[in-house]
């Protein structure tokens, strides 16, 4: 089944190369096919198979896999109105063979003074990750992003409007830029369910807009499939953040995020989860050396309660530090992730708790302009208490070694 999809995606990529030669004006079209040889050493079934393993693949689903088939189109509808869409396929249990991960319009007026305004509407990632900055929200530093950015790729998308304003430093003879950003969104009420049931994970599978994931634990309504991008309580969420960029080399970003879910609301399929967090990140780029650190601290709540805060409350935090060195066409990256969740309320009914670390080492080699070869090792160590409910060991190491061959056109 997956081989048929891989073949179809490869054909799609080949067909695109032909059309790319045509005059496309300002349009940019990127097609990428990512094939993996994967070896997993883990006692757990992957969460993609409905298990409580934190990797995307498991021992029953390794060998040759499709990493991702991706198509991104970006271009101006008018001089200052840009459209951007990404279609993705992962060749696993997706309901659709290929589906959108992002689709948005952005109004980019020419600055008339030192303030740059940007308005974006549609479905897109809020500006939190300092790691996922390549086409299709991929990380240029490794195959697998950090736990924080894995979770954003799984459960979070802005389906709404975002406004940013940037003070352009060089225009006022200053070596820094300052940006403020705010967003209002809906259709993200189930956000929180996965981190509550499974904890943090470390993988590169982005949830598409019209798809979801198997539930590790069946919901009280008997539902077995999580759909993340749904509106349940008719209450919009918001985020507000700031960014400080010094000499285009050092960047500090902070954001407060709140989906303002009403934990007492349930539409039969799912509950609205109240998920809030603060995120802070720092990135330094000194020519070919990149250092990134990000941290996130928040909570999520679900279920009716007398005080309205929720019957279950899960606190979670994570941070990572990453170092990456580029030498010509070669890139070497090392990253350390720390993950933690704990049930603050309702633990007598469902005790969700995770404490884990992950090490990632990646080597990426750009072979010409279109091909990339990457080797990556991930090792996750730690415990997840809810595994014991399913008579699995709470703590065990999970290891992944993968070789990727990527063709981008």
């Amino acid at each position, binding site marked *: 089944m997956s081989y048929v999809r891989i073949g179809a995606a490869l054909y799609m990529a080949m067909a695109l190369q032909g059309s790319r030669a045509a*005059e*496309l*004006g*300002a349009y*940019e079209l990127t097609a990428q096919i990512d094939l993996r040889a994967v070896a997993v050493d883990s006692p757990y079934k992957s969460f993609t198979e409905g298990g409580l393993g934190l990797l995307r693949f498991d021992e029953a689903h390794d060998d040759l896999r499709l990493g991702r088939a991706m198509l991104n189109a970006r271009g*101006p509808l008018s*001089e*200052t109105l840009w459209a951007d869409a990404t279609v993705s396929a992962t060749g696993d249990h997706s309901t659709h063979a290929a589906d959108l991960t992002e689709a948005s319009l952005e109004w*980019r007026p*020419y*600055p*008339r*003074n*030192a303030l*740059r305004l940007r308005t974006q509407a549609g479905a897109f*990632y809020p*500006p939190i*990750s300092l790691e*996922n*900055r*390549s*086409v299709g*929200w991929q990380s*240029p530093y490794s195959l697998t992003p950090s736990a924080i950015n894995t979770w954003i790729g799984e459960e979070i998308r802005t389906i709404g409007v975002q406004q940013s304003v*940037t003070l*352009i430093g*060089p*225009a006022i*003879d200053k*070596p820094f830029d300052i940006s403020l950003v705010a967003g209002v969104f809906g259709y993200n009420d189930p956000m929180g369910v996965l981190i509550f049931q499974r904890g943090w994970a470390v993988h590169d599978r982005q949830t598409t807009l019209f798809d979801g994931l198997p539930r590790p634990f069946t919901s009280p309504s008997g539902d077995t499939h999580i759909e993340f991008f749904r509106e349940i309580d008719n209450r919009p969420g918001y985020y507000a953040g700031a960014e400080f960029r010094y*000499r*285009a*080399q050092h960047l500090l970003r902070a954001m407060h995020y709140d989906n303002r879910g009403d934990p007492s609301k349930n539409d039969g399929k799912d509950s609205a989860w109240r998920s809030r967090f603060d995120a802070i990140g720092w990135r330094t*780029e*000194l*020519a*070919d050396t*990149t250092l990134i650190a990000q941290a996130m601290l928040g909570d999520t709540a679900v279920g009716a309660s007398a005080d309205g805060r929720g019957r279950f409350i899960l606190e979670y935090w994570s941070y990572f530090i990453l170092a990456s060195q*580029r030498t010509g066409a070669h*890139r070497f990256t090392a990253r350390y992730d720390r993950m933690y969740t704990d049930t603050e309320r309702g633990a007598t009914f469902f005790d969700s708790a995770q404490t884990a670390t992950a090490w990632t080492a990646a080597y990426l080699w*750009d072979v010409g*302009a279109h091909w990339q070869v990457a080797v990556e090792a991930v090792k996750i160590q730690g415990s997840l208490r809810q595994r014991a409910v399913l008579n699995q060991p709470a703590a065990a190491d999970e290891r992944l070694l993968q070789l990727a061959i990527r063709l981008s056109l």
Partner: protein
Amino acid sequence: MFFESRARWLSVQWMAALCAAMIAPAQGADLIVEVIDPQGRGAADVVIVVMPETLPPRSNATATIDQIRKAFVPQISVIRTGTAVIFPNGDPIAHQVYSFSPAKRFDLPLYRGRPYPPVVFDQAGIVILGCNIHDQMIGYVYVTESPHFGKTDSHGRLTIRDLPMERVRVKAWNPHLSSQPPEQTVDMRSTNARLSFRLEQLPRAPRKTTDPRIRDY
């Protein structure tokens, strides 16, 4: 990329020198300028402008500022007022060059496969270039009334040839300095005219990553 940009810049300089030689016959007065940073090393890419007492008439000069790997090349240009600047866009992607600097306001979309008319910089001043698609692209154009100018080389040196035999004012400028060195005057009638500028701080140009895979979210 560095050598490429230097080569392009040098060709612009050669053309400018050639034009200057054709318009005004050689007057023989050369000025050697050096710019020294606080660590005693030569400071590269410092714009040097020599202001004569009387300005010769404007010529129809042209210059080129390319767009290569999401950067303006050269990042710092110095041109005379009235110069027509061509933005060829050497990238396989689109750019939208703009400036809101008082000396020259313009918007110039540069889509692939289409030539765009040059932009004439007709007012003296510092023009900061941006790209509306790639927010981190920044370029600087120093527009001067004088025909005598250049940029220091990697050793911090520059020779400006064929200056009038008179007292001239000399300015040094670099966008990566928070305070510019004071203007100096030099009498070109004295033999071996030399001038040096001592910077109080290091010009700190950002060294950007050149990974083509980074688009930025």
